[in-house]
């Protein structure tokens, strides 16, 4: 029996559709998610299936949209907000950071905000600096937000269903370059737990920890490295908050080498937190080489294709980074 294969965007749509079918308190709101089907086509036909009340087109009004989601969540709804590009969350940061993240704790625990905020993230589409950022560190730094970066169609559906069911605000950063990628996704509703890392490949020579689109890129790199006789473990944390260090530490104790790969700029990037936690724990004593970070350059994402590619780790960069680490360079 062949496994069903669908795209990352379809997997997200399927998760939302199934959640809306099974729970009348789930609804979507965002810009152009209705008849247009979403800027990246994610909401697709949901508008026709569930109607304009539950697949709610909004004015261009990010702070208002997120605030409305917070308010609806406070009184028992489960809103799924789509922010058209993750960069536009800057408009809504008061509602995300000062309201959604803090309400449960600050107000004493009686109220909570079961809101999901989805946003397309990352570069690679020629959209330049205001439509291409990887802003996960902003959110991961705020206590009270869960932060999820699905790296495949399978993860996208399972993590989103967990996020919708979570009684807390969850930021889901979807990578634009993954929307059209395909993979096996079960048809039934299933939940991928938030806060559990996944080991995608096991190898004895080095540990690669990667997030977002860097996960599939690292797996490709690992396949090439294997042909060169280098066997890499590839780990996807899947969720940044909460962060599961267990499999990372375990793997390092076997390999003694670790390369951390992220698209976001290196300076104060999330991956530095993983490096810091490695250095705090027993894993540091297993390291035979210093921790290696492969990150985006500390520049705004540029427009020209050759410039855009140059600022973010590409497949050859991951391969050569691993080779350097093996050579102790």
């Amino acid at each position, binding site marked *: 029996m062949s496994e069903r294969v669908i795209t990352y965007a379809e997997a997200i749509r399927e998760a939302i559709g199934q959640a809306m079918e099974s729970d009348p308190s789930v609804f979507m709101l965002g810009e152009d998610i209705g008849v247009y089907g979403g800027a990246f086509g994610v909401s697709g036909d949901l508008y026709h299936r569930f109607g304009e009340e539950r697949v709610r087109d909004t*004015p261009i009004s990010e702070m208002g949209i997120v605030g409305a989601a917070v308010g609806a969540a406070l009184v028992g709804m489960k809103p799924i907000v789509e922010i058209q590009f993750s960069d536009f969350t800057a408009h809504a940061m008061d509602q995300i950071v000062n309201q959604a993240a803090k309400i449960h704790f600050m107000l004493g625990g009686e109220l*909570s905000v079961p809101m999901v905020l989805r946003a397309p993230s990352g570069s690679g589409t020629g959209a330049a600096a205001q439509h291409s950022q990887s802003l996960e560190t902003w959110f991961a730094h705020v206590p009270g937000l869960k932060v999820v970066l699905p790296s495949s169609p399978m993860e996208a559906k399972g993590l989103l269903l967990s996020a919708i069911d979570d009684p807390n605000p969850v930021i889901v950063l979807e990578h634009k370059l993954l929307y059209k990628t395909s993979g096996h996704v079960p048809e039934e509703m299933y939940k991928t737990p938030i806060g559990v890392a996944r080991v995608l490949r096991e190898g004895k020579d080095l540990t690669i920890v990667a997030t977002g689109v860097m996960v599939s890129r690292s797996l490709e790199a690992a396949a090439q490295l294997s042909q060169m006789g280098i066997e890499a473990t590839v780990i996807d944390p899947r969720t940044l908050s909460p962060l599961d260090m267990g499999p990372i530490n375990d793997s390092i104790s076997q390999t003694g080498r670790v390369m951390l790969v992220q698209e976001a700029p290196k300076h104060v990037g999330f991956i530095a937190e993983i490096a810091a936690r490695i250095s705090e724990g027993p894993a540091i004593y297993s390291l035979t080489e210093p921790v290696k970070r492969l990150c985006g350059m500390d520049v705004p994402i540029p427009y020209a294709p050759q410039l855009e590619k140059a600022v973010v780790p590409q497949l050859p960069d991951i391969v050569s980074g691993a080779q350097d680490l093996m050579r102790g360079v």
Partner: protein
Amino acid sequence: MATITPLLPPAAGKVSDDKASAMAALESLLAIRFFEEAVDGMFARGLMHGTMHLSIGQEAVATGVCAALRQTDFITSTHRGHSHCIAKGADLTRMMAELLAKQTGYCRGRGGSMHIADAKTGNLGANGIVAGGIPIAAGAALAQKLKKTDNVVVSFFGDGATNEGAFHEALNLASVWDLPVIFVCENNKYGMSFSTAKSMKVERISERAAAYAMPGVTVDGNDVDAVYEATKQAVDRARAGQGPTLIECVTYRHKGHSKSDKNLYRTKEEIDFWKTKDPVGKFETLLIEKGILTKEQAEQITENVRNEIRNAITEAQAAPDSDPAELLSSVFRAVN
């Protein structure tokens, strides 16, 4: 637990025409006044820490508005939120305990004066961010529409909030979606120090409603009856699915913005002038003049409310201090 009689609407007409409604309103005005005078005094004596924003002089707004609401209706409130919280029916002991940083406080000592919420009475929270609660109110109203209830949401905010983007975004959403929300602006003439005269060109904040094709009215915010009547009309519209209303209540805070205010931006004459329009004394006098209450009955109510505030302080002071041991486990609600 220390409580006052819940506010209730008059059977018909004005609050001051109906004995039960009027007595509850007087209790509310007095409870807000005495609660805040008490915490002001405790702060001055070093018995309370942090900061607080007092609404002394503005009590008629929360009282008149909440008299038109049901317990199942919702409010969002502001940094100057004690009055809204009390008028919506909060337990005075739990409020006092919060300000005294106790475990039994509404926020278990994590929020303080600026963040009191009370799910039981539909208070979705005071908010330390100016205008932060306004989009939240729109969202809570959207939820009522989706759930097909006839509950309404009131968003309280100050004059300063109406220069924030959040105010305009929320009014637009409420307008285009015909949401059951009432936007109540307490115009006390100043932000922290910057006056409305300098911060906006419109004469009246209610004029801003025109931009969102909703009714906008300005009322005397020191007059319980005027506030109630405007709110009643807006609530009726909202419950009937006719959308939002902006109500501007013109009022004045007798005290400074917060505890650091030296009143450099306004004159003693102006403050004294507004004290002659004190909403609490004014309402009490009105009830006695109309024969709704005798002077003795009014004195009895005053004494009862003073006792409730004293009880709240005594009970709150006896409660355990808030507990650091539960901090890390309180950031998220547990996943089922």
